[in-house]
Structures are given as C-alpha cells and as structure tokens.
C-alpha cells in the first residue's frame, strides 16, 4: 500500500551525468523490471477482471450481495475512487512541485532539510489516523478525503522534486546562465526537464499511495471501492470482502501501470 523506493533507485534516474560503467548491469536490471511492470500488470488485471466478471455472472448471491455488486453501483464506486485518486494526485503535484522548486532556490535552500524532515515525520502518521482526525475536524465527505490523501501523497513528490533538482549537474546550470539564459529559462528549459524522470518516479509513488489510501475514504463517507470491503467485513460476507479487495487491487495495479506509462512518456529524449 505504501511507497518504498530505496534511494538507490531514484538516484540512478538522475540523468545529468553519464552513468559510471559499473552500474550498467543495474540499469539493465531496472529495464527488465520496468519492462515486466509495463506488461505484466495490465495482463494480470485483464485476466483477473475477466475471472471476476465470470464469477459475478455465475455466483449464487443473496440480496445484500447483489445490491452491493450491482454493475451500476460498482461503476459508480470505481468512478469515485478514480476521482479521489486523480483530484488528490493533481493537487499533490500542484503543491509539491512548486514547493520543491522553491526549496531549491536561493535563500530557501537552507529550509529544505527542515521541510523534508517535517514531511518525513508526517509520513510516519498512519493514514487512517490522518483521515479520521481530519474528518473529526472538518466533517465527513469527499473533500475531507481529498485533503487527507493530498497531505499523504505530498512527501514523495516533494522529496523527489528536491532530489531531482539537486541532482542536476551544477555545471549545466552554470552553462545555461553563462550563455545568457535567465534563471527562469534555466529552470524551465534545463533543470526541470532534467529532473522530470525523478519527479515522475515520485508522482508514481504518490499515485500508488493515494489510490491505496483512498480505500479508507469509505470510513468518512468519501466514497470509493472501500465501500464494498467495509460492507463485506462488517456483515462478514466473504464474497463481498473478496470482491471488494480484488476490485481495489486491480484498480491500484492499473493506476501504478498508468504511472509507469506516464513516467516513460514524460522522460525527455536524450537521457
């Protein structure tokens, strides 16, 4: 449910300097992992979803179960879940990237360890606790869930934006300034493009984090596929538990896959 990219991985994504020869094997391995992760999850999702459809059409379900697993209901829940995920992730990017940029500029640079440290501690808060506390404070509903998910997804993108920008070879920045690019031009045309792979790795992590945590939105009436799970557990219906779990897992895999594709598409040529 949570992110765990070890630092070594995002470091190898910093593209400014040519990779030392020793790491070529590691890059090959990462490529293998990337290839697998681009092919396997969609296939898996399709197969399992086909299995779900088959089960759904043939299983002997009682009234409660049928009500929960009605196609229109399921589609609404998926839509809610996707909406939670994308609205929160968009907010995460909109907040974390500019903040990350700011924390690598001039006099704000000194603040970046402090901010990242605070964010790290914040990340230690259980997602469930964060959601419940915000709900007590702001009331139930979609937007409270969005706020909680946004807060929860901030750190990976913020951290990777800072890491990515710091990883840009300073001589390239100076080269840009030296040939007469304004600092804004250097930021938008040199630094950010070069940091994009690292930032996007953070975005993917945040997507996975958010889509998983969005399952908990059901506890505060925020909607999403967690509804089926929660109903299943509280009524102790195995069919609902499994169905809800499978649907959530499939959606999460699909979103992680989307993140990978996005990462690949945004990667600047030449890196």
């Amino acid at each position, binding site marked *: *449910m*949570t*992110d*765990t990219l*070890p*630092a*070594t*991985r995002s470091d190898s994504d910093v593209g400014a300097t040519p990779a030392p020869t020793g790491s070529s*094997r*590691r890059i090959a*391995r990462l490529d*293998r*992992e990337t*290839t*697998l*992760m681009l092919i*396997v*999850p969609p296939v*898996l999702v399709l197969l399992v979803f086909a299995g779900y459809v088959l089960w759904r059409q043939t299983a002997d379900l009682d009234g409660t179960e049928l009500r929960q697993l009605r196609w229109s209901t399921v589609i609404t829940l998926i839509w809610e879940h996707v909406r939670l995920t994308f609205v929160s992730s968009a907010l995460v990017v909109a907040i974390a990237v500019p903040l990350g940029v700011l924390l690598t500029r001039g006099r704000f640079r000194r603040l970046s360890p402090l901010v990242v440290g605070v964010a790290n*501690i914040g*990340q*230690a*808060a*259980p*997602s*469930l*606790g*964060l959601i*419940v*506390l915000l*709900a*007590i404070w702001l009331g139930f509903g979609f937007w409270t869930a969005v706020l909680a998910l946004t807060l929860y997804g901030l750190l990976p993108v913020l951290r990777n934006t800072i890491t990515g920008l710091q990883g840009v070879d300073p001589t390239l920045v100076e080269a840009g300034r030296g040939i007469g690019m304004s600092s804004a031009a250097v930021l938008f045309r040199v630094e950010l493009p070069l940091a994009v792979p690292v930032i996007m790795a953070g975005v993917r992590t945040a997507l*996975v984090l958010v*889509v*998983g*945590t969005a*399952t*908990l939105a059901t*506890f*505060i009436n925020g909607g999403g596929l*967690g509804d089926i*799970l929660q109903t*299943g*557990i509280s009524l102790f219906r*195995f069919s609902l*538990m*499994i169905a*809800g*779990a*499978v649907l*959530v*897992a499939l959606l*999460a*895999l699909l979103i*992680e896959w989307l993140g990978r594709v996005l990462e690949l598409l945004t990667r600047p040529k030449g890196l």
Partner: protein
Amino acid sequence: MWDFIVERRGQIAYNTLQHANLVIQAVLVATVIAVVLAVLITRAPRLQGVANALSAIGLTIPSFALVGILLPLTSIGTVTAVVAVTFYAVLPILRNAVVGLQGVDQILVESSRGMGMSELASLWRVRLPLAWPVILAGVRTSTQMSMGVAAIAAYVLGPGLGGYIFKGLSQIGGANAINYAVVGTVGVIVIALIVDVLLLLLGRLTVSKGIRV
C-alpha cells in the same frame, strides 16, 4: 485530553506496547524471510527483475484490500494482523536486500572465495556485512510502513493503537472522539519515531566503520 490519557494510562501503555510488539516481530520475521529470499534471488540474476516486479505489485495492493482477502483464511483477530503486516514488511526489505547484495563489488566476493572461504562464509562475512546498510534502510522503510498497516488491521480487531482510531471514528460527535483519534494517531507516530531512532542506533552499532558514510 491530559485527563483522558491519565485515566486510561495503563490501557494506553498496553496497546502501545502491543502495537510496537506486532510491528517489531513482524519486521524481524520479514527481515529473515526477505534476506533469505534475496540471497536465493541474487544467485540467479534473471530472477531479480521478476522479484522487483513482484515486490512492486505487492506494494501496490492496498493493505485494506489484503486484509479483506486474508479474512476468510485467517478470521478476525491477531493472526490476520500479523500476516498482513509481515507481508508488506517483507517487500521493501526484499527490494533493498537484492539491491544491496547486488551492489557488493564482485571482485571482493571473488577474492573472498579465492582465499578459501566457502560460499556460506563469503555470504556471512563479506556480502551480508557490505549489503547491511542498504538492507537496514529497507528495514526502516518497512517499519514505518508497518506501523500504518497495523493500525488498519485493527479494523478486524488486530492488536495495538489502531483500535483507538476506529473508536474515535465510531464515537464522532461524542466527547472523547477526538481524544481517541489523537491518542491512536500520535501514539503511532511516537513509536514510529522511537523505533526509527533505535534502528539508526542499531545501524551505528552493526555497520562496519569502514563503510559508514
């Protein structure tokens, strides 16, 4: 708030310990599983991509969903919590252990074999010590993550502080809702930080001075 804590200090202390206990034990077991798996995986380089992909897929599955899948098998209570927490705990450690073992300079391994160490001795005395800092970083990530998973597992009556958060949720509007939720949440943060500091200390003690950064 203070009165609330003092009144229930015994119970809170008990649940805090339970939470820490669940996580620490699960992470310990997970470390052993992950390192053994990583050692086996690094013997066959082709498996590494597969292992990383599997661990990425595993981490993508929401913990609440895993709890749902486990419930028919392990029923409500501690067992589900332990299995779920351990499952997630393995993945980051596994990934880091593979990276760490892979990162050990092949020349060092060869020279250890060349001076007559058995494969096991070379693993125990050269590869694992050199990979240990990376593995330990995985353990830290894993521990922090497990704290949150354990809280969610309280929904199926797992042990620990998660129960307070759910109590707060169910009593919303009541006088103690916020107290329960805060105690649960802050409690988890506090143990997470304490355990993290302990792990850092463990690193100071167990990482060879020669490779410490």
